[in-house]
């Protein structure tokens, strides 16, 4: 397919109509960035396919990015004339009015060898003639900058998407990825599967619970039935059984109420009824029957208890009465007056004895105190006498001490006189010395010679002072000794006088003690004093003991009398109780006989009441049977309900299991489809990759991609359900391999992308290649190499190149003759669009 001419107006950056006549030759569009080159390439794409790749997203939905903004008619139009390989001529015109969004219909008019087509028929004819899909256009005809960018800069996923696009398996891959996604555990399919499984599980648990309840209910029903059969109930004729049990119960209740005289229950019993219309009705009647029975039972029980209590009380009275009578017989005391008289006598005796005992104890206590006092005085007399003896022994008696004192006073006076004399001597000596010192320059008044006063003074001092001082010291010592002796004598004398006074006092106290002894005992106290006192205390002790013994005897008798008195009082009380209880009076014997008779009668009554109570309690057997029959009815109804629930759950389970089966079928189908897609994809890949490998490496080696890694390999891998491609490069000897992305520069990676695209394009039947700015980031050598490769392609493929790279464009114009290439320059863009100039 070769484009013969192209005319564009009102499309994206192009406003005024631009016409390119190529005559089937290749086409070069040169111009600075933004001048409208890409718009022209997109115009070819839109003209042929009715859509433009990569114009996607929300913003393209909000405005029409196809119709030129300044076109006065608001119409985009592309006219393309084509000749195909078979020589057919095709001319198409595609137009579109401005819409509110980029995606939208365009009108097409097609003329094929003079035959015209419009609208849908034109679109269909165009697809038939072109022999490529929009996907193939993007992967083998038009190398968009976006694809190069994804190949060069994108991660594994973006790169793999781009390669898929180039290789033409992107749609299959996308389809496969969506299908695979549905098989992941977190997918909606699996979530739905799990949700339904959960419902099935829940329903199964519910079913099991109901079934277990049903089985338990069946067992209980069977057990109730067996119990009824065992009790003689004809379970086949339950209505009859109910009627019979009910009438028997009613009769017993009526008889009992009358016997016990419970008048208020009689009408209630006669109105009892039981309806045999299912468990609820039977239970209603039973509730009333049970209530009446409870009341009967309660009254009967109260009567039995009351009678029992009465018998117990009467028995107790009988026991007490007998006991008191026998105790009085034992004490031989029956007369209350006699007991009172005896108590009076014993009481006065006891008072007298207590007083006497108190007097004796007082005397004993006083004698003991007296004994202690006397003992203490005697001890002190003894101690003081010893001290007096000691003083007399040391200092003599009082006269001797006073005489010694007088002698000592005399000595003391003499010594004082001696000391005074020595003091006078000493004063004289000092006067002499003072004199001598004052007159030392003078001549001795005795001998008229100069006095050597120093030696005289020294001599006098030595002789007099020594003796004087020694004598004075002796006198002072003697004076001190006399003073001390005098002091001791004074102390001794003082102590002696004090002791004599004390002894006088003690004697007085002993006299007083003797008087007291006489007062207490009436006897004179004789020596030895202490023994006499002790003897009297011993006598008193014996008297006290005798008295205490007598008091004890009287007390025992008194207690006996009190006990008899108490028994008589208690007997009176018991007899009063008996009289009150029986309503009779009389002697003890009469009361005792009446009591025995009454007890006998109460016992007979109790026996009768017990029989009634047992009969009422026995009604429970019948009531229980009626209850069992009601239970039988209720369980049958419950079983019916459970069976119904089971059926409903089984129905629900069936529906959910059908859903589960369908989901499993869907998962199986999706798994099968996914496996088939993967298989087809791998087969297609193997085929494509093997067929393009030679072209790829031929183009790559001519483009001077890498100095060391000169062969390329495209290796598909599966990673988590997605196919990705690793682009690897090998050294010439195949000894070294590397990932293109890890060691190649951006330029080298661009060259890899271009090589891959051109290898694919060579295999395309369209024989048309459109390149948008392919020399980006290439240096001069690479640009030359790319021109050479493109030049070689132009042998049988029409190449359309748009570039802003003047060096690259110049290289193309220089290397490729106008026989093969037509070139236009676009410049000076304005609202009217760029200005076009043919340059080659």
């Amino acid at each position: 397919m070769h484009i013969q001419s192209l005319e564009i107006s009102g499309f994206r950056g192009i406003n005024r109509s631009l016409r390119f006549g190529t005559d089937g030759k290749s086409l070069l569009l040169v111009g600075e960035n933004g001048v409208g080159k890409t718009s022209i390439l997109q115009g070819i794409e839109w003209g042929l396919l009715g859509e433009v790749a990569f114009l996607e997203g929300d913003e393209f939905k909000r405005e029409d990015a196809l119709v030129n903004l300044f076109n006065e008619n608001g119409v985009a139009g592309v006219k393309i004339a084509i000749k195909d390989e078979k020589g057919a001529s095709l001319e198409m015109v595609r137009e579109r009015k401005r819409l509110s969004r980029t995606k939208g219909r365009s009108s097409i008019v097609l003329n094929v060898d003079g035959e015209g087509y419009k609208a849908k028929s034109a679109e269909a004819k165009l697809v038939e003639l072109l022999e490529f899909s929009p996907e193939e256009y993007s992967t083998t005809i038009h190398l968009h900058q976006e694809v190069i960018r994804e190949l060069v800069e994108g991660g594994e996923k973006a790169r793999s998407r781009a390669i898929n696009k180039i290789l033409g398996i992107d749609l299959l891959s996308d389809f496969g990825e969506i299908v695979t996604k549905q098989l992941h555990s977190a997918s909606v399919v699996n979530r739905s599967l799990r949700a339904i499984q959960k419902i099935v599980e829940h329903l199964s648990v519910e079913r099991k619970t109901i079934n277990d309840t049903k089985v338990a209910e069946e067992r209980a029903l069977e057990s109730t039935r067996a119990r009824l059969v065992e009790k003689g109930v004809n379970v086949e004729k339950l209505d009859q059984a109910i009627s019979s049990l009910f009438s028997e119960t009613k009769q017993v209740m009526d008889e009992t109420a009358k016997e016990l005289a419970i008048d208020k229950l009689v009408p209630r019993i006669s109105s009892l009824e039981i309806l045999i219309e299912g468990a609820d009705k039977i239970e209603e009647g039973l509730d009333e029957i049970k209530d009446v029975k409870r009341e009967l039972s309660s009254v009967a029980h109260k009567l039995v208890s009351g009678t029992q209590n009465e018998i117990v009380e009467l028995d107790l009275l009988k026991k007490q009465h007998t006991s008191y009578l026998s105790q009085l017989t034992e004490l031989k005391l029956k007369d209350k007056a006699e007991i009172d008289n005896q108590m009076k006598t014993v009481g006065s005796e006891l008072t007298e004895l207590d007083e006497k005992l108190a007097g004796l104890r007082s005397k004993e206590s006083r004698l003991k105190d007296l004994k202690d006092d006397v003992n203490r005085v005697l001890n002190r007399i003894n101690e003081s006498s010893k001290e007096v003896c000691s003083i007399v022994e040391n200092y003599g008696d009082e006269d001797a001490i006073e005489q010694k004192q007088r002698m000592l006073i005399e000595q003391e006076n003499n010594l004082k006189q001696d000391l005074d004399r020595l003091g006078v001597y000493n004063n004289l000596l000092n006067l002499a010395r003072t004199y001598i010192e004052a007159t030392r320059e003078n001549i001795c008044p005795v001998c008229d010679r100069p006095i050597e006063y120093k030696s005289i003074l020294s001599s006098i001092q030595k002789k007099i002072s020594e003796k004087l001082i020694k004598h004075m010291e002796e006198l002072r010592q003697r004076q001190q000794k006399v003073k001390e002796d005098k002091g001791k004598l004074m102390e001794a004398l003082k102590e002696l006088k004090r002791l004599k006074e004390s002894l006088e006092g003690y004697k007085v106290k002993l006299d007083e003690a003797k008087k007291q002894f006489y007062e207490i005992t009436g006897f004179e106290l004789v020596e030895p004093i202490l023994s006499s006192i002790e003897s009297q205390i011993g006598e008193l002790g014996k008297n006290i003991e005798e008295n205490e013994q007598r008091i004890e005897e009287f007390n025992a008798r008194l207690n006996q009398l009190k006990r008899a008195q108490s028994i008589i009082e208690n007997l009176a009380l018991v007899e009063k109780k008996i009289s009150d209880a029986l309503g009779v009076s009389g002697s003890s014997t009469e009361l005792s006989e009446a009591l025995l008779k009454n007890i006998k009668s109460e016992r007979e009554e109790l026996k009768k009441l017990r029989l009634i109570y047992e009969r009422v309690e026995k009604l429970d057997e019948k009531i229980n049977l009626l209850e069992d029959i009601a239970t039988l009815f209720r369980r049958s109804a419950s079983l019916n309900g459970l069976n119904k629930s089971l059926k409903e759950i089984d129905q629900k389970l069936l529906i959910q299991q059908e859903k589960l089966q369908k989901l499993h079928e869907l998962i199986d189908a999706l798994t099968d489809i996914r496996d088939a897609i993967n298989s087809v994809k791998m087969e297609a890949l193997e085929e494509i990759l093997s067929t393009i490998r030679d072209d790829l490496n031929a183009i790559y080696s001519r483009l001077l991609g890498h100095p060391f890694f000169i062969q390329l390999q495209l290796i598909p891998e599966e990673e988590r359900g997605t196919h990705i491609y690793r682009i690897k490069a090998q050294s010439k000897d195949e000894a070294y391999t590397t990932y293109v992305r890890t060691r190649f520069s951006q330029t080298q990676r661009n060259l890899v992308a271009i090589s891959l695209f051109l290898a694919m394009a060579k295999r395309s039947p369209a024989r048309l290649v459109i390149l948008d700015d392919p020399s980006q980031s290439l240096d001069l050598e690479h640009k030359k190499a790319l021109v050479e490769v493109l030049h070689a392609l132009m042998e049988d493929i029409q190449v359309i190149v748009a570039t802003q790279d003047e060096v690259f464009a110049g290289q193309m114009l220089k290397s490729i003759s106008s026989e093969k290439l037509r070139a236009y320059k676009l410049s000076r863009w304005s609202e009217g669009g760029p200005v076009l100039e043919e340059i080659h």
Partner: protein
Amino acid sequence: MGDVPELFEMVSRKVQQNHRELLELLIDSFKEGGSGSLEAKIKEILRNIEEE
């Protein structure tokens, strides 16, 4: 060369007979509206199963 209709035809031949109807349904949805439409179709199938 990966021709898309041909590739889908190959897939169709590889899947089991009883899964082809579903595959065609999915392919139609995919052709009609891409991945979003395909996912919506699968959800619709699920919904139909769940609501039955």
